């Protein structure tokens, strides 16, 4: 069979799918595709149902919301390659910037919704084993000899980049701290990491199921999920004194919604994240709500931690990415696989 036969076949196979898609656009119920990152599965399963009900309550036909989850960087790549996302809800702004860079959405997307287009925030915490046998109370305790640390690979995982930056921010704050001492501390940290998984979920499985490591650097919401899912493991969450304010951003993908005629519902979907119902669901799934009243009502579940931002410490995501994580950046310098 030749290549042209193959593509002709593909076109034939695509025809019914196309007909169905255009029928949906003109007809009643709309579909929406939310391309998101790994740890938001539980949040969006519940939020999608809530939004569908709310949208139907406003006199519209009940929409179908589809979701796709994976590592944040990889999901951005799929959208760049043509995955027809109506909205992106990723782990960090840099990944949406990459999509915007290719013209899929306006470059100033982050100014279009309140709070840097991040309807909820999270932070990085330390997850330790039953009884905290290594007595880990703060970032500094990680560098004791004999402490084995589990964190994913910052090259592929958004969460891992937040972990790295949180630790760096802590190291800068130490007496006499500067770029050089911070780099030394981060170098030491990654020497104590026995395995770098590609994503947060893989790392958590390594820590919990395979019993590797003394401490897991984790998204706050992912740590709570681990406590729920593995109650018999007796894991404990340790809040460091200082951590980073992770702002997982959301955006409408202009090119795709204009093509599919879904801009209005996509915009409403993201705005619903900022509504009281959306904020309560975020809090329920251990994301820190932006809404002061909802945060107040859930204060006990979100211990106060001093949170620094990427903008303040690193001058924004573009600069942090370029200096630390791009090829030839600081992470490449300090971490040589197979090397010392």
């Amino acid at each position: 069979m030749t290549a042209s036969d193959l593509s002709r076949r593909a076109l034939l196979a695509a025809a019914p799918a196309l007909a169905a898609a255009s029928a949906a656009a003109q007809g009643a119920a709309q579909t929406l595709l939310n391309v998101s990152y790994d740890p938001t599965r539980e949040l969006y399963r519940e939020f999608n149902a809530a939004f569908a009900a709310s949208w139907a309550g406003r006199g519209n036909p009940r929409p179908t919301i589809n979701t796709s989850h994976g590592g944040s960087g990889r999901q951005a790549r799929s959208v760049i390659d043509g995955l027809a996302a109506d909205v992106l809800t990723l782990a960090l702004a840099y990944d949406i910037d990459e999509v915007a860079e290719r013209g899929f959405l306006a470059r100033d997307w982050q100014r279009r919704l309140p709070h840097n287009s991040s309807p909820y925030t999270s932070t990085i915490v330390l997850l330790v084993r039953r009884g905290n046998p290594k007595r880990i109370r703060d970032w500094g305790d990680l560098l004791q000899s004999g402490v084995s640390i589990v964190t994913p690979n910052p090259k592929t995982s958004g969460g891992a980049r937040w972990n790295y930056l949180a630790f760096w921010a802590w190291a800068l704050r130490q007496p006499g701290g500067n770029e050089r001492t911070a780099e030394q501390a981060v170098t030491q940290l990654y020497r104590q990491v026995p395995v770098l998984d590609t994503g947060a979920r893989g790392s958590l499985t390594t820590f919990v199921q395979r019993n590797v490591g003394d401490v897991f650097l984790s998204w706050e919401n992912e740590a709570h999920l681990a406590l729920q899912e593995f109650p018999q493991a007796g894991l404990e969450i340790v809040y460091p004194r200082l951590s980073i304010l992770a702002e997982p951003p959301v955006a409408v993908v202009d090119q795709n919604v204009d093509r599919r005629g879904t801009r209005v519902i996509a915009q409403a979907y993201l705005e619903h994240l900022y509504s009281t119902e959306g904020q309560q669901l975020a809090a329920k799934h251990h994301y820190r709500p932006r809404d002061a009243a909802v945060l107040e009502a859930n204060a006990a579940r979100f211990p106060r931690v001093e949170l620094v931002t990427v903008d303040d410490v690193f001058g924004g995501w573009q600069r942090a990415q370029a200096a630390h994580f791009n090829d030839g950046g600081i992470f490449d310098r300090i971490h040589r696989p197979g090397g010392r």
Partner: protein
Amino acid sequence: MRSATADPAAIRWGLPLLALVLATIIFALPLAAVFAEALRRGWGVALAAIAEPDTLAAIQLTLLVAAISVPVNTVGGIAAAWAVAKHDFPGKRLLVTWIELPFSVSPVISGLVFVLLFGAQGYFGPWLRERDIQIIFALPGLVLATVFVTFPFVARTLMPLMQEQGRSEEEAAATLGASGWQTFRRVTLPNVKWALLAGVLLCNARAMGEFGAVSVVSGHIRGQTNTMPLHVEILYNEYMFAGAFAVAALLALLGVVTLGAKAVLERASERRLGGAA
């Protein structure tokens, strides 16, 4: 019957025993573990996991992809094997190498090839986008990737047999005035029908189980573009271990049934050949 070699008993009995033990450790035990894990919390939990809408959608999609890919590869495989075994033409060796290509290339690369061709940034991306045609991250992409990966199964099963059978029967048919199509339908095809069935079944088993290439072009949209193998990974990552193993067990079962059917067919064909000889 005399043994072909005069090896000592230790080797004659030891080697097969070793092979059997290895096969048990490497294949049978893990497979048994999948079924045990799936049923650990009872049939009710396992069946409920399978009856979940996203899982049913994954099962449907897997069967649909196989239902398209296997016939395509059956026709393509017969044509390729027939061309190679019964005809001489320049570039024949090249064609044989081509047919084997999917076996030697990593499935991830097979998937990436289609992203490179049909992705939004790919060669045909802009053209397809203008016409609103979605190939990757949709059914056509899944089918293409599966066809690519599973193409050699039918062709490779048929080629050696057809070559061994030679061309004398076809030539006799032609001498007696049969048309090309008649020769093919009455002579060539009946001669290879058992091998063909075996190849089709193998192709089907792999088409349902393919992970790598399909993962690259899927987009992982729940209930839309997740095949069973991808759905197993998703469930596992969501800590739904019972569900993950239930779907894995069902997938394994489909594979085992397919292979069982193949074994039965092979025995039947041996008996026929034995009777004819």
